[in-house]
Structures are given as C-alpha cells and as structure tokens.
C-alpha cells in the first residue's frame, strides 16, 4: 500500500514537472515575444531590451526555467499583464469561486446519478432502466454551451424566473448559482449514472447475489446490504475523474454566465495573451486534475478488498 501511494505521488510530481517544462517552452521559449506580450505591441525596442535585461531573460534557457520554477513553487507567479497586479491576487479568489460552483455541482450530481444508476442497474432491461439509460445518453449529448443557451432561453427569457448572468456583483446570491450548477449537472450526471448502472448490473448477475436471493432474503436487503457495497466501488473512480471534466465544463459555464471563476480567468487570459496568468491557471488545472486522479487510484485500492489484501 505504501509503495503504491509513493509511486502515485511520484507520478504526480513527475507529471507536474513535465507539464511545467512544456508550458515554459510553449509560452516563454522566445524572450522577444514575451517582452512584446508583457509591454504591448507598441513598446519601443529599447524598453523591451531593458525589461528583458531586468527580468533575467538573457540568461540561458535552463537557468531561466530553474528560476521560473523556483518562483512558481514559492507562489510567485509574476504579474498579470492585463490587471497589473500579481497573479496570485487574482487567482486564489477566482479559484475559490470555482470551488463553490464545483462543490454544489458535486453535492447534487453524485447522489442523483448514483440513485439513478442503481435503480437502472437493479433490473437490467426493465422499463425504468430503458428510460434512465436513454435520457442519460440524451443529456450527455447536449454540450454545455448548448444547454446554457437552451436553459437560459427557458428560465431567463421565457419564464423570467432566474437571472441570466451570475457575476455576483452585489454579493453572493443563491439565485445566480442555480443555472450554472444545473448546466454542469445535466452534462455530467449521465456518464456517472451509466457507469453506476453497468457496475450495478454486473454485481446483480454475480453468484453471491443469486444465493442471497435464493436463501430468501428480502429484495431490499439484498440490494442495500449486499449489492450496493460492491457496486459503488467503480463509480468512486469515475466520480473522481469527473473533476477533470468539470474543469473543462466550468470554462464554458463561467464564460456564458459571466461568473468570476477560474475557468473564465483562464479563457480571458488566453484571449488576451496574458502570459503569466495562463501559466499559473494551467499549472493549477493540471495539478487539480492529476491530484484527483491520484486520490481516485489510491482510494480504489483502499476500497477494493481484493486489491487491498493481495
């Protein structure tokens, strides 16, 4: 177990290092373009030279990378070109807002998709199973950017129940959270539900369930005490991997609803070539994705007795 954990964490560190090298090469390989991005296209040649000199861009590449990485590890992400403040000042509040969005999405999506998946998988091929399966295919087929438009057409413009933007400009409002969370849930729950269904259906055909039924246990007890325990191991991994998907989803949702989160920040930074913000956001996104994957792997081994005791 300890070997596995240290292996996974080693992979996490290695991935982050490789990603940092890639990002650095991709975005900072030529100092000339860095200076143009930071100082703007109308800056004079001398001022660019001075800026590069002052920020150590004439050092060799590996030295620059080392310095960059060192600063990065200590939370010095550089200054945002657009907002003229240190990146960390913008990044952390934005990340917090996205965490709130993600928390509510998961808090509703996980119970919903698990219940639907278990109900569908309990009796494979039943009418309920058909309905749940088909509707989860349909909801996963509607991309987030399409459902944002459709849902706001219904709830904002049609029924006028909910606000069309979620900028939270006058403090936090629950009403403004409903649509973003709804869009994310609609897109994500289908996949988790289908995975849960597959896992549940597989468990239901196993021998120990059959013997539990045959020895006369009430159906409810067979499901709750025997089937669920094993059926919910696989969805655990799937749910952790959903965090990776959610990071993509929040970009679209935050962009559309003008929610001041991390995804919108990354997109704005890319559209404006705001170099240091892109680097910081990308590193954070990959870290969250890989870390959740690591937790999924370790958790799966812990939950699954067949692996835990081998």
């Amino acid at each position, binding site marked *: 177990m300890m070997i596995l954990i240290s292996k996974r964490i080693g992979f996490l560190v290695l991935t982050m290092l490789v990603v940092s090298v890639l990002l650095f090469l991709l975005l900072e390989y030529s100092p000339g373009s860095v200076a143009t991005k930071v100082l703007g296209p109308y800056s004079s040649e001398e001022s660019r030279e001075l800026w590069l000199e002052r920020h150590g861009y004439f050092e060799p590449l590996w030295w620059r990378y080392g310095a960059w990485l060192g600063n990065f590890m200590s939370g010095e992400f550089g200054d945002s070109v657009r907002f003229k403040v240190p990146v960390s000042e913008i990044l952390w509040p934005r990340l917090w807002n996205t965490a709130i969005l993600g928390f509510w999405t998961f808090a509703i999506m996980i119970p919903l998709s698990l219940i639907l998946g278990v109900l569908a998988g309990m009796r494979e091929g039943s009418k309920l199973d058909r309905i749940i399966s088909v509707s989860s295919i349909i909801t996963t087929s509607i*991309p987030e950017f399409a459902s944002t438009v459709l849902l706001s057409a219904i709830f904002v413009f049609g029924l006028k129940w909910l606000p069309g933007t979620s900028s939270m400009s006058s403090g936090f409002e629950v009403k403004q959270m409903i649509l973003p969370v709804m869009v994310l849930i609609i897109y994500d729950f289908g996949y988790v539900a289908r995975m849960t269904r597959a896992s549940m259906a597989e468990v239901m055909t196993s021998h120990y369930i059959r013997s539990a039924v045959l020895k006369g246990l009430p159906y409810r007890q067979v499901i709750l005490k025997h089937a669920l325990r094993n059926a919910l191991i696989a969805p655990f991994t799937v749910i952790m991997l959903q965090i990776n998907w959610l990071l993509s989803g929040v970009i679209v949702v935050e962009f559309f609803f003008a929610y001041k989160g991390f995804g919108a920040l990354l997109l704005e930074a890319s559209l404006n070539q705001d170099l240091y913000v892109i680097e910081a956001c990308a590193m954070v996104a990959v870290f969250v994705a890989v870390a959740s994957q690591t937790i999924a792997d370790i958790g799966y081994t812990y939950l699954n007795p067949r692996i835990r005791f081998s």
Partner: protein
Amino acid sequence: MRALKSFALLRESTPGMVGAGLVLFWVIVAILAPLIAPFDPLATLQPMAKPGTVYAQGGTFWLGTDHLGRDILSRIMYGSQTVLFYAPLATLCAYTLGIMMGLAAGYHLGWWDIVLSRISDIILSFPVLVLYIIIIATIGSSGINIIIAITFASAPGIMRIVRGLVLDLRNRDYVAAAQTRGESSMFIMLVEILPNARGPLIVDACLRLGYVIITIGVLGFLGLGLPPPDPDWGGMINETRKMAMIFPHMTVFPVLAISSLILGFNLLADGLREVSLRD
C-alpha cells in the same frame, strides 16, 4: 466483414437506427446544401427577421435571420458542411496518429511502450478544454490549427485503446504464423493485427466524432474557432447569444442542429456496441 455485419444488424437496435438516421440526415443536408439552401449564407438580406418572415424580393426566412440579416436556415445548412468536413478529418488524423502509437507500444512493448504510454498519460491528465485553449491561444485559430489541436489531444486516448487491443491480439496464432513466415513487424501490425481490432475501434470512432463536434462547437462558442464569416454552428451561437432575450430563434436553431448531430453519433455508437456485444 464483421463491421459490415454490425451495420446490417443495426436494424435491430432502435436507438442505433435513430442515430444513423440523424447522422444520415445531416450528411444529406451537407451534400445538398448548395441546392436546397434558400439564400446565400453570407449575404446580408434583412436584419433580425422573425421565423417565417416573407422576404420582399421573394422567398421566406423559415428560421428567421440573424443580427446581420443573414438567413439562418441557409447558414445552418452550410454550417453542416463545415462541421462534417472538419470533424471527420480531425478524427481521422487523430486515429492515424493514435493507431500508429498504439500499435508500436502494444506490439514492440519495452521502451516504445514505456515512452509512448508516459507521454499519453501526461497529455491525458490535462483537462481537455484547458489543453485546447492553451494550444489555440499559442498557435492561433484556423482550420488547420484546430485539426492539429484535436489530433494532439485525442491521439493519446486512441493509443490507449489500440494498445489494449494489440496486447490481446499479439499472442494469437496467426501473428505467430506471420512471424515465422518472416514478415516485417510493419506488415504484421497493419495487416494481421489492425484489421482484427477494428470492431471496438469503430464504436469508439463514432463516440469520438461526437466529442470532436462538441470541441469544434465549444471552440467556436468561446471565440477560438474558425474565423468568421464562414458559417460555423458554435460561432453562430456565440455571435447571437447576447440577443437571445429578444430574438431567441437566432441561437436556439443552431443549438438544436449541433445537439441533434452529436446525439446521432452517440446513439449510433451505442447501437453498434449493443449489436456487436450480441454475437
């Protein structure tokens, strides 16, 4: 032959048939767009007409016009050409690269496998859209760059599937026979192994086409897609979404178009998988 048989058996799966129908519908629309589109998709005719408005110089705007006065029905029809050109092309490129990587990793094993698998793991650990945004922001947005970005981001996933299939197939007798005959490893990979791995790959390709269509749509929606004025569904939604309060038709119809095409590929994939599991 088995792949053909799957398509023939598809008739037994209702969702699969609905999916095939939806895809076929859009393929026909794309092919016939120049013949059946009522107006020029780029021409400025009459701004902000509601659906069903009759045009003074003949013709009807069945789905209305957008903020620049372009006929939405015609733009959706021509837009299907754009999406059905770029999505399969990008998927094909991703598959070519992914299959080569998967064959090399799964057949040769050893260093090939370690290096290729590690590269894939790292690319796959990126949240997809973050990867696309960084690539497109760096190399700029154009048709070719979108294909490059999709190839780069999807090939690792395909490689994993192919590698898994090859690991299973490489110990078969016919592979051993080919090795004894002294065939080159290239021949064995492409002629002996690849054709036997195609079943699951066809199902995956349908699903992946759906994802690629979503990707192209999302990039257009975020303003990173194909440059205007070519009709592109995602771009159409982005351009008009701020007016959706007054003119919902401008955004809702492109949304329905793209959702139905993606749904078509997903149902088709589901039907094919169901049918292929049956025999």
